[in-house]
């Protein structure tokens, strides 16, 4: 071919490509209802109260439905376990509803089948079991708090008296449960009142981010960290840096087994005679503020609170109960109630029973509802291998995962937004789960699944849950039922508190010494929990608190230990515990206890789906039933390396003060920066939007990040793009480590767009795509943006995000249902950033103007603000001096981030308040 021909052909191709861009869009269709449902107004969302079951417990939610599509959830303000807050996992759960990797059909030995075939195939083996009084029928579920499921299981056990029901949660409260029996003789649930606690000691308990009560804890705790409230004081001894440790006034890192010893020591000092011979206790590394702590606890009898972490052995939990009793905290800051779980068991023990039954060939039918035991069971049970010896294996699961692969029948489970059901929260308050959409893949929920085992012909979830509650909701059932559905709370179901007393001659066994080079701690992953959320990219890409790692887990290790073992970030080590080995990359985590390693569950999935399969390492692979939370192992550097993607590589403040800290009670003056400018002042408008973020309240839990992602149709980008620094989150939580590597102060700072009044981005946009609204919003107009990225380069806060590639998914049909219809889906080549949820502002404005009034203070709630469990974010009109945000900005601790640049940000921060004990050594104080 001639050069000339080649060029002319290239030109023709280019011209054709150009013309292609001009092609007309296809005419859009409008498809109205045939018979319209009564409540639907086209274009307006509906809201329904429901709850997300998480490890069995209800997370109460209000779910938003846009023309039949659930698009967003928020906490239920009426429910005591939420009070309006929702966690990052709950926020991300909407994505999982539309996950195309969910199992979409009933399968039998891997072949597509139907629910009806399953029910008929079940008939004869079930009849055999029925003849044997149910002998050989075993059921394995997760933790169950659902009153309806418990009732169904009771019926099942009546019909098959010799059948067995086992419950297993990989991340449970076995130790706490065993501890309560040691202390009180039977299982009880503890409930804490952080609003009443003045001095709090956490022994490795991450109460702000783990457990079914964490949202309530965060709410109550943060409320005591505001000026005007008597500040509480938090002491934390922990092995792995956690967000609870970050909020501590006094924190000290200790290995988990040293924390155990410390608990004994503390018991001795506080007058709890529980150990037969105190000489057996070797005191751990001296905690520098121990004397101050003990004095503080004793001075706050009845208003102090001591908590033990779920990883700590039962003896520590028992000791803590005794300590709280000695301090007079019981019935003041600690309450006890009957367990909320329908049948409280120690989960590892329960699974062990099942495993030994299977090993002895006593199980003929095994029905596994939920969970993923083939992946999560302790490794020494060899559950996967044993499972294959059961003659008839059935599985109900959202995904066709590791466990389903080993079962004869797999039934697709309905997502909670698709099912009728119920669940109880940590305090016992029940919520009716109501569906917002028909099951996308004809899934069945646990009730319907159990019904196939119990009833002649399986009933629907709706009938089952109504049958159960009929007669349990008072005389006027229909009214009470509608009330319960509307409120998301079934009244009168809160667990009653009960009085407890320590067993006579209370004593706990002395701690066992550990062996091995390093201590290994198993914890649930902060993002994907026990692995059940592994296929959720919103959670995978969510930077984990403190480490800021995405898409992977890593063995967390202290800088000193890393230096000793000559390890850097990403170096792979081999851990060996007996015959079990595991290879894992390390991540150096300042503030981690020395000679200790934290492994997070949930990764190393082999059948999670396109998102979750093959990421990270499987911590369950060396977790044994004997040491399910704290183990010991040898460690060896292998020389291999694994690249890890983190969103923040530098954690020092470098002498500047992006996060400011004030000791509670000290005098502060408002920084009072000059607003001098060469530009003429902007004329005032009806409203001036602004935001205040209270760093004293913020616990760095990440809920706002995912809430923003769900509200604003923010795409995920994948690990390699995160490694390129291209993550798209509109709000990020900057984390700073202040003061050395051993025990630094951890500082969180949520950073959305500052909506500067002198916005540097606006001046450099060559096409007028980013402009200033009269109400002070820094607007980004996607259809004008040509992608020069000048604005991003000129932004001192680095909050602008660019679509380097086509990140938004226009193709997958289900994801079209997920999008918020009020926010544009951005395409490649477009800059985007926080808009202060302008769609919510516009909605409120239109509503107010139609009603002929001004927008009320608090009427506009941004997505980040709505979900925040700590109420750290407040949005509103700063031109109204009476508005909540204006009053917060008038507080003397209000300051501007990088205020010296005179960008005059509309988002400002409230300095962090700390409350260290004045008698504690200077170097061990925060602030």
């Amino acid at each position, binding site marked *: 071919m001639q050069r000339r021909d080649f060029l002319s052909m290239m030109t023709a191709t280019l011209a054709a490509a150009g013309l292609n861009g001009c092609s007309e869009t296809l*005419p*859009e*269709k*409008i*498809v*109205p*209802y*045939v*018979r*319209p449902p009564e409540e639907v*107004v*086209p*274009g*307006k969302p509906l809201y329904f109260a429901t709850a997300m079951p998480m490890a069995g417990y209800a997370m109460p939610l209000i779910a938003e439905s846009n023309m039949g599509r659930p698009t967003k959830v928020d906490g239920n303000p009426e429910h005591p376990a939420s009070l309006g807050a929702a966690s990052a996992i709950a926020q991300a759960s909407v994505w999982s509803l539309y996950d195309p990797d969910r199992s979409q059909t009933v399968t039998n030995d891997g072949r597509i089948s139907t629910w009806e075939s399953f029910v008929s195939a079940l008939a004869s083996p079930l009849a055999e079991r029925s003849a044997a009084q149910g002998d050989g029928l075993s059921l394995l579920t997760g933790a169950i708090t659902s009153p309806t499921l418990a009732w169904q299981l009771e019926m099942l056990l009546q019909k098959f008296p010799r059948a067995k029901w086992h419950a297993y949660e990989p991340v449970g409260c076995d130790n706490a449960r065993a501890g309560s029996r040691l202390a009180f003789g039977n299982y009880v649930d503890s409930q804490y009142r952080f609003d009443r606690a003045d001095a709090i000691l956490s022994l490795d308990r991450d109460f702000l981010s783990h457990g079914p009560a964490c949202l309530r804890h965060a709410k109550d705790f943060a409320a005591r960290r505001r000026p005007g409230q008597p500040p509480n004081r938090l002491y934390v001894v922990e092995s792995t840096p956690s967000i609870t440790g970050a909020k501590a006034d006094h924190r000290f890192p200790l290995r988990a087994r040293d924390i155990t010893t410390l608990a004994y020591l503390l018991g001795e000092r506080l007058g709890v005679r529980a150990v037969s011979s105190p000489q057996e206790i070797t005191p751990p590394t001296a905690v520098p503020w121990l004397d101050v702590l003990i004095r503080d606890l004793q001075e706050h009898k009845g208003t102090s609170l001591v908590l033990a972490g779920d990883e700590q052995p039962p003896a520590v939990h028992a000791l803590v109960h005794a300590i709280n009793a000695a301090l007079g905290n019981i019935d003041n800051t600690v309450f006890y109630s009957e367990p909320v779980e329908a049948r409280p068991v120690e989960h590892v023990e329960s699974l062990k029973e099942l495993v030994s039954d299977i090993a002895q060939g006593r199980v003929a039918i095994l029905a596994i509802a939920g969970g993923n035991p083939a992946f999560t069971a302790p490794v020494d049970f060899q559950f996967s291998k044993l499972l294959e010896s059961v003659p008839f294996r059935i599985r109900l699961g959202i995904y066709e995962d590791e466990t389903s692969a080993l079962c004869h029948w797999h039934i697709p489970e309905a997502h909670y937004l698709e099912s009728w059901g119920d669940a109880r929260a940590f305090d016992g308050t029940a919520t009716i789960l109501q569906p917002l959409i028909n099951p996308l893949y004809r899934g069945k929920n646990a009730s319907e699944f159990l019904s196939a085992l119990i009833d002649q012909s399986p009933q629907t979830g709706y009938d089952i849950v109504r049958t159960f509650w009929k007669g349990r909701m008072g005389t006027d059932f229909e009214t009470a039922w509608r009330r319960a559905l509307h409120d998301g709370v079934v009244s009168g179901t809160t667990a009653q508190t009960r009085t407890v007393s320590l067993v006579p001659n209370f004593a706990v066994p002395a701690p066992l010494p550990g062996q091995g080079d390093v201590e290994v701690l198993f914890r649930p992953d902060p993002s994907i929990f026990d692995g059940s959320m592994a296929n959720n990219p919103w959670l995978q890409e969510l930077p984990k608190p403190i480490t800021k790692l995405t898409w992977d887990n890593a063995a967390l290790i202290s800088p000193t230990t890393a230096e000793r073992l000559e390890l850097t970030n990403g170096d792979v080590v081999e851990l060996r515990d007996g015959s079990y080995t595991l290879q894992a990359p390390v991540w150096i985590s300042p503030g981690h206890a020395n000679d200790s390693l934290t492994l997070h569950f949930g990764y190393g999935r082999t059948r999670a789906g396109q998102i979750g399969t093959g990421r990270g390492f499987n911590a369950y692979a060396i977790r044994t039933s004997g040491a399910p939370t704290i183990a010991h192992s040898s460690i060896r550097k292998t020389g291999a390396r694994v690249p890890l993607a983190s969103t923040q590589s530098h954690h020092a403040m470098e002498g500047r003060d992006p996060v400011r800290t004030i000791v509670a009670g000290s005098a502060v003056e408002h920084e009072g920066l000059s607003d001098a400018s060469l530009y003429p002042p902007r*004329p005032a*408008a*009806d409203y001036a939007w602004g935001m205040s973020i209270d760093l004293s309240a913020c616990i760095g839990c990440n809920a706002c990040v995912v809430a923003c992602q769900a509200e604003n149709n923010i795409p995920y980008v994948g690990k390699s793009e995160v490694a390129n620094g291209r993550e798209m989150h509109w709000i990020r939580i900057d984390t700073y480590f202040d003061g050395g590597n051993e025990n630094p102060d951890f500082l969180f700072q949520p950073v959305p767009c500052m909506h500067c009044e002198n916005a540097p981005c606006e001046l450099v946009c060559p096409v007028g795509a980013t*402009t200033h*609204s*009269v*109400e002070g*919003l820094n*607007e980004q*107009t*996607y*259809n*004008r943006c040509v992608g020069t990225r000048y604005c991003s380069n000129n932004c001192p806060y680095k909050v602008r995000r660019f679509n380097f590639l086509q990140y938004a998914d226009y193709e997958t049909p289900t994801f079209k249902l997920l999008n918020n219809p*009020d*926010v*544009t*889906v951005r395409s490649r080549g477009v800059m985007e950033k926080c*808009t202060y949820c*302008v*769609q919510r*502002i*516009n909605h409120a404005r*239109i509503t107010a*103007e*139609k009603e*002929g009034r001004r927008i009320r203070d608090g009427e506009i709630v941004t997505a980040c603000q709505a979900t925040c469990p700590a109420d750290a974010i407040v949005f509103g009109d700063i031109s109204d001096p009476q508005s909540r945000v204006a009053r917060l900005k008038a507080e003397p601790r209000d300051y501007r981030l990088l205020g010296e640049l005179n960008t005059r940000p509309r988002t400002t921060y409230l300095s962090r308040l700390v409350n260290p004990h004045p008698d504690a050594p200077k170097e061990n104080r925060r602030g």
Partner: protein
Amino acid sequence: MPQIFHRSFNTLSRVSIFGAVFILAAVATVIGQIVRSPHVTGAHVVVVQPVPFSHKHHVGGLGIDCRYCHTSVEDSAFAGLPPTKTCMNCHSQVWSDAPMLEPVRSSFREDKSIEWVRVNNLPDFVYFDHSIHLNKGVGCVTCHGQVDEMPLTWRENSLSMEWCLDCHRQPALFIRPRENVFDMHWEPPSDRAALGRQLIGEYKIATPRQLTNCSICHR
């Protein structure tokens, strides 16, 4: 060195430089006309629908109110398109066996929606709200034209941003009293601008400075 160009090139180059200005202007004008033409905007182009529904007959002839079918127009961003049930309210009684209405009957019978083709369409990055426009005195006719005279429905205006801004920049020239927004034959007074100014005060209509903020429509 010999002359490369003939002397006449001097004139030629002057003319072409001068002429280029006109040529560019002409090209710009032509492009401007094309993008505003019905070919591109779709204005005044009749859209073929599954049922040849006539607004002229239903609105002009029978005098049915807009809101009988477009029920959510006062409450929601979306005016709403009638469900088949609304058609059948009458057509189960009148013209109940007209062949033209078979798609309506089969929709009702088989519980399958009629797929209407959108006539007035905005790009996905534009967020228009019907309810607030009605509330501020923008009549149906102002944007949709004399729908009561359309035997088949077409788009009356270009719906381009330029066209939206015409009104957002000076609403006084376009608004009418609230009680007349659904009136297909409202006659503006001789001094419409004066009425407009009065209504702007009464209805608390925002200033053009605010109405032309990007985030009013784009988000």
